[in-house]
């Protein structure tokens, strides 16, 4: 079986050139950085906060903080990785505000029981993208990923949706590389398990398509 191909990102040098121009006060260069990454920041923010208004605020505040603190950006990582770190912190802060009754942290202790051991081992057939129309499919995917604990879904979104490397994800989330790998494995397996319940069901013709609750720990 072949490996997953990573998303290709912009060359670093071109990005850094924009950053240096922005540091010298060239606002058109900063605006170009906004245009380059606003979609990514919005996606990440909405995945974490699960709330559109919060995601809009995160986009604005993350870029504003990046702008105000450009002089402190040491250029030891990509600008995008630094920006993602700011955006993730903003998003988590808003999530905590909305859910004060729950501890929301990327460092939270996650269950150590076998929550990721595969139970559903039937293949998906036909292909889910042929089985459901696009809005049904998006609804299933959205509800399924929302059920993951924030620490898991954030790692999955950065690594697998946005295409950051393991090292960049670790930098952005201030986690160790083994912690990123462990969470990514469990996030992938939990998503697979939950999606299997949908993608096997219709083929088997039983059950309903309801996913209950949100699984934030």
């Amino acid at each position, binding site marked *: 079986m072949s490996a997953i191909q990573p998303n290709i990102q912009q060359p670093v040098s071109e990005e850094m050139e924009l950053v240096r121009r922005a540091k010298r006060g060239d606002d058109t260069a900063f605006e170009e950085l906004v245009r380059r990454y606003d979609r990514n920041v919005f996606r990440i923010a909405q995945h974490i906060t699960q709330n559109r208004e919060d995601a*809009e605020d995160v986009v604005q505040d993350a870029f504003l*903080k990046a*702008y105000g603190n450009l002089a402190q950006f040491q250029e030891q990582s990509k600008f995008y990785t630094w920006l993602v770190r700011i955006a993730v912190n903003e998003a988590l802060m808003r999530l905590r505000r909305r859910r004060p009754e729950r501890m929301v942290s990327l460092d939270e202790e996650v269950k150590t029981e076998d929550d990721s051991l595969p139970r559903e081992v039937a293949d*998906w057939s036909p292909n889910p993208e042929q089985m459901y129309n696009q809005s049904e499919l998006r609804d299933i995917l959205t509800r399924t990923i929302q059920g993951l604990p924030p620490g898991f879904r954030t790692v999955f979104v950065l690594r*697998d949706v946005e295409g950051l490397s393991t090292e960049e994800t670790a930098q952005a989330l201030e986690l160790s590389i083994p912690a990123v790998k462990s969470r990514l494995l469990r996030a*992938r397996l939990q998503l697979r398990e939950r999606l299997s319940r949908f993608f096997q069901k219709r083929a088997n013709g039983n059950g309903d398509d309801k996913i209950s609750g949100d699984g934030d720990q």
Partner: protein
Amino acid sequence: MKCTEFLSELTNYLDGVIDAQTKAELDDHLAWCHNCYVVCDTTKKTIEIYRNQELYELPDDLRGRLQTAIMSKCTAQKKSGPQKV
């Protein structure tokens, strides 16, 4: 190789970041263990489907409003000094 050992290497396997010998052992396991083959295949499909579907796209009109708001706040901030990250 046991299935649990295969599972612990699954992420490295899918990301293509393993040495040739481990890859050969994993490929060998996949060749005879149907359950692990299905788990590996559907995990790969899970990643691909989330990547392909691009949930939470930023609509053009909202995007335009956000860009305008960001740049106007940046201009205002230039005069009043930076915030802390």
